[in-house]
């Protein structure tokens, strides 16, 4: 491959030092940019803010990975770990998982921010300042012989301050809320979920899901959680150990997407479930906000707490085979009169497992771990099946906590026997 100065276009306003040009020459010989290999040209640019020279070009994945150093630091001292410029790779982040899949499917990533620096770790002169997750994804793809072209921005001969400034800018992100990502993903899957929510009046006509937690509108995650658990309840056996779950957020939810394929959106029972949930939310909200005392915003929103959504949805699915219990569950909004709220959020907040729940425990329906989901489901089960007085109160909530503890122990004991 021939390197000609003619292939680097330097506009008249720029007067790069010779060391910059020499660095560019070395970069070209090591990394073989696609443009140069195909008789194209590169432009030299100057970032006025950082006062740094850079070029942009495309490099093959294999070449990139061979030369890249993800542990770029300010001073070039490999032991100086406090000055590592990049954040750690979050292997479990849903977005990273998607990135890796995209890389395997031939995605070309862009704007990987790199400095070409031979001053330390000469074998890996491409010091990464922005895009380490993308590069990790590229690395995994290359290990499976998938080597695509990727867009890089290469800086040369940066001072210490320039390194810090560029690294800072490239590791500052305005986080996209997970609820917005969920909504975008749901749009990709189709309009069924939104249409169904509009039909059951969880959303108004022409209204979309909320892109963040808010008091009136559900997010995509809330709607998915309701549906996943309805179907889980539907297929659960009466004597199973019932465990509601919460839908994932910020990435793909495989369980939801599998269920989505089999949903009959017009199914009468499914629509009725949605309408009754919407009604519960509406009345819960109205009762709390219209009363004079204890107009607590969290109480008003209680029906939309993920724990309540998951457990109510599960109960509704479970009770499809028993009309009496189902009707009882659906009549919960009518179980109390003004100014009382049907979920009795205050009573739920006071319930606790004596001796065990910590002082800072905020009561039922506030957390989304497995134990809380199981306890909240037990509230609805006891309410619908056993309670003589059909009202959620502190006594019922405490009974639900005890009942769940007993079931969990029995399940654990049974599993231990089965393992023998």
């Amino acid at each position: 491959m021939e390197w000609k100065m003619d292939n680097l276009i330097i506009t008249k306003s720029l007067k790069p030092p010779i060391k910059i040009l020499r660095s560019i020459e070395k970069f070209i010989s090591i990394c073989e940019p696609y443009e140069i290999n195909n008789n194209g040209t590169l432009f030299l640019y100057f970032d006025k803010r950082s006062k740094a020279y850079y070029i942009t070009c495309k490099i093959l994945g294999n070449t990139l990975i061979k030369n890249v150093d993800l542990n770029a630091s300010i001073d070039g001292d490999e032991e100086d770990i406090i000055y590592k410029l990049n954040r750690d790779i979050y292997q479990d982040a849903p977005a990273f998982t998607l990135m890796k899949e995209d890389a395997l499917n031939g995605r070309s990533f862009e704007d990987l921010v790199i400095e070409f620096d031979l001053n330390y770790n000469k074998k890996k002169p491409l010091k990464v300042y922005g895009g380490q997750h993308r590069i990790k994804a590229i690395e995994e793809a290359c290990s499976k012989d998938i080597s695509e072209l990727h867009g890089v921005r290469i800086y040369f001969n940066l001072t210490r301050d320039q390194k810090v400034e560029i690294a800072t800018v490239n590791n500052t992100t305005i986080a996209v809320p997970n609820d917005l990502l969920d909504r975008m993903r749901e749009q990709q899957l189709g309009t069924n979920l939104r249409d169904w929510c509009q039909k059951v009046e969880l959303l108004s006509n022409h209204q979309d899901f909320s892109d963040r937690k808010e008091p009136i509108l559900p997010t995509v995650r809330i709607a998915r959680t309701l549906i996943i658990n309805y179907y889980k309840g539907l297929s659960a056996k009466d004597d199973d150990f019932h465990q509601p779950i919460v839908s994932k957020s910020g990435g793909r939810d495989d369980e939801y997407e599998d269920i989505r394929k089999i949903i009959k959106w017009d199914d009468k029972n499914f629509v009725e479930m949605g309408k009754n949930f919407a009604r519960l939310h509406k009345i819960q909200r109205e009762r709390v906000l219209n009363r004079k005392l204890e107009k607590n915003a969290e109480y008003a929103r209680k029906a939309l707490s993920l724990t309540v959504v998951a457990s109510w949805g599960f109960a509704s699915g479970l009770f499809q085979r028993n009309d009496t219990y189902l009707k009882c569950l659906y009549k919960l909004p009518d179980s109390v009169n003004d100014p009382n709220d049907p979920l009795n959020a205050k009573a739920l907040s006071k319930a606790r497992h004596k001796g065990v729940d910590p002082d800072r425990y905020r009561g039922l329906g506030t957390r989304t771990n497995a134990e809380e989901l199981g306890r909240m489901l037990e509230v609805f089960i006891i309410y619908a099946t056993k309670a003589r007085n059909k009202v959620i109160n502190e006594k019922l909530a405490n009974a639900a906590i005890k009942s769940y503890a007993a079931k969990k122990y029995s399940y654990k004991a049974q599993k231990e026997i089965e393992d023998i």
Partner: protein
Amino acid sequence: MFEEYLEDAYDFYLIGVEYYEDDNERKARQYFRASTFYTAGAIEGFVNYITDIFKTNGSFKRYEIAFLLDTCIQFDSSKFKLKKINEFHKIEDKVKFMMKKFNVNYDFKTEISWSRFCKFKKLRNMLVHPNDINEDIKIAEFKKDIEFGLSSIIEIMDILTYKIFDKHLRQRILDFKLV
């Protein structure tokens, strides 16, 4: 209820210690007695709480529930049916039963918490069924027996709680241990 009793036992003990350190033996004994009663009540309350959790889910047999709730199932030959009669059972027997029922790895012969609990139980019995001989309990020994008694009861509760619920007693309760 058992949590409140433990807290009461602890608070009364502390007040008793203040009087003890002021050489006011009469008042010290008064509060130490109260502390003893609440400690004894706490372990009873705890056993009842565990029984209440499991009595309806099929984990306990009917006669086991009867045992824990101080009843006994008898056959009434005159009416040809089973009946429940009151029959009090020792708290230490109930605790032993629970340890066995929930497969707790606990050696009653060697565990120091058990020997201290049994010694505390004797103290409690002496106070509940007083006679003149009881007044010979030295105040320093009284104090020590409460310390070991309350602490051993909390330890036993914690062992059971952890085995049954996979969780320890909450920290505030564990902080009531005096030794």
